[in-house]
């Protein structure tokens, strides 16, 4: 009886993770190709633009980029938690299930249709990303069931196939893009965190925080849903409604994250799994703490990506995949036997 969650222990854990995130963001903001002096930053922008380069780099480049990385990490980790609960599968993740490539295909389609690359702020790209993400969820679910129920292997297989198909379509589209856009498009597809203007960041932050808050309100029901639809119904939870809401919100925040950073994989796998090891499986705390620590994880990965081969930069998706790939294999060997027989 000692492990039942209380509001106080939840607040403590959220505060702890928030503190960790703030520390990570602060430390990472000081790391980079260009050395920055904190005292120079605190001295302010100066009288003329460009007078204090330390301040300019810190405030106009590093901080927005770190906030962006944090938003992407929070969205992907929370999306992973929700997908794992409704699919009753610890290997479910927006990238592996092809939802991210679905969203990317939506963005590419909108781009090819002549929409500019600016994201949100009234652009139809966000809507396209979301629609394609939702469509992909349905497609993976449908194909997975055709292949023999929602078992771990059939769903993953469906995700892999749809991912491969969408990647081919995206490649085809990429070849139609003029060469000026090509490099930035490919970097974006590989998952890159670049500069975004303040209004984009604000709008994305509102969408992602709203989506995660929405998922938090159904997090106790996600606990029950982990026992299957029949069990959930016997315990007073409408499984169809909760599944639908969770799928929609997870797809929505994934779509926003993909619009911001392209395809960043494995965050939704590595982070929830690690957090479960620390705090346990209760979704009421797994969801908010995964979002916060997912944010910290991508901030760290992006810091590595922009410094490891400096002055050049790697797409952050490369770093998350290098960490996430082996974790995925370990989890697959651990869980495939256990979840292989699930209906």
């Amino acid at each position, binding site marked *: *009886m*000692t*492990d*039942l*969650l*209380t*509001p106080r222990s939840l607040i403590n854990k959220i505060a702890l993770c928030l503190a960790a995130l703030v520390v990570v963001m602060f430390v990472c903001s000081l790391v980079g190709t260009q050395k920055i002096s904190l005292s120079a930053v605190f001295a302010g922008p100066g009288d003329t633009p460009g007078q204090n380069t330390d301040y300019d780099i810190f405030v106009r480049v590093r901080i927005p980029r770190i906030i962006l990385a944090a938003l992407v990490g929070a969205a992907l980790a929370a999306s992973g938690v929700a997908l*794992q609960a409704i699919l*009753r*599968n*610890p290997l479910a993740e927006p990238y592996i299930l092809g939802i991210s490539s679905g969203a990317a295909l939506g963005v590419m389609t909108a781009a090819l249709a002549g929409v500019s690359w600016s994201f949100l702020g009234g652009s139809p790209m966000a809507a396209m990303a979301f629609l394609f993400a939702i469509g992909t969820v349905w497609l993976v679910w449908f194909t997975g069931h055709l292949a023999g129920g929602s078992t771990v292997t059939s769903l993953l297989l469906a995700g892999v196939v749809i991912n491969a198909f969408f990647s081919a379509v995206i490649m085809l589209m990429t070849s139609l893009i003029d060469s000026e856009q090509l490099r930035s498009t490919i970097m974006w597809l590989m998952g890159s965190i670049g500069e975004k203007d303040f209004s984009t960041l604000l709008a994305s932050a509102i969408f992602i925080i709203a989506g995660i808050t929405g998922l938090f*309100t159904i*997090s*106790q*029901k996600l*606990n*029950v849903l*982990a*026992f*299957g639809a*029949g*069990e959930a*119904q*016997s*315990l*007073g*939870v*409408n499984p169809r409604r909760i599944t639908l809401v969770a799928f929609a919100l997870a797809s929505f925040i994934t779509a926003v994250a993909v619009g911001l950073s392209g395809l960043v994989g494995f965050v939704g796998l590595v982070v929830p799994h690690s957090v*479960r090891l620390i705090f*346990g*499986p*209760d979704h*009421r705390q797994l969801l908010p703490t995964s979002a916060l620590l997912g944010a910290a994880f991508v901030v760290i990965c992006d810091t590595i990506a922009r410094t490891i081969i400096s002055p050049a930069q790697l797409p952050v998706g490369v770093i998350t995949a290098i960490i996430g790939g082996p974790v995925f294999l370990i989890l697959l060997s651990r*869980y495939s036997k*256990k*979840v292989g027989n*699930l209906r």
Partner: protein
Amino acid sequence: MNPVRNENLKNTNLHPEISNGVNIKVQNLRFAYKAQAEILKNLSFQIPASTFLSIAGPNGAGKTTLLNLLSGLLKPASGSIEIDSKPISSYSVRRLAKKVAVVRQEFVPVFEFSAAQVVSMARTPYLGALAFETNADKEAIAEALEMTDTARFADRPLGHLSGGERQRIFIARALAQQTPILLLDEPTNFLDMKHQVGIYDLLKKMQIEKQKTIVSVTHDINLAAQYSDMVLLLSADSSYSFGPTREILTTERIERVFDVQTFSAQIGQTKFFFPLGKFTKSQSSPPGF
């Protein structure tokens, strides 16, 4: 052995008034899975409150299907099910979860919830908007753990418990749900003899101390004979018999429904049944056995 096949059993339908109020009333119930023959046909019975009913019958007779209909998971093709004199279709998912708790065949989720966390999920229909357990919820959980003698391993992950311990945890969860009706699907499957009797003792205790209506699907006729007040015996041909245990469980009827030669013996008040195979070492065995 000369079993009588394809003979419809007479519907005994005795409806004895064991106690006040009718908890479950089933009338002219029909159900078929898509593109298959009807598995349940014109099924009618009433289960008085605080009754221990066993549902028995051969494989494929529709026992689990009936349980899923009674728990609202499946919808009947025609006919009606009433819980507490109201049609089951008039209940919301949440309200029905306050009337009926279900213990299904053993299932372990992939996430390592502790036994106490699993039991705490019983309080889902009672939780407020913030979805945290109140003191009343915690009392119900503690009482359920105590009654099922599971408190000592409540902090352990469900997957680390033995089959018998897990089954007790799921019964504790059903108890913490504080419903007047408890449905169980083969609760003693895969358990050894000691744990089979342990689970049924626990169910009987819940019936007596908490005045619960217990509906248990079972393959074990002798457990049904020992513990239940009433029996619903479903046949593969969609006929059925329903009534007090002693009237329904007769050697002749068991031989007919299960299509197996059966011996019976009276021990105390209870009649026990023993199916005989062709190679049984008894007086009637062929030479050499």
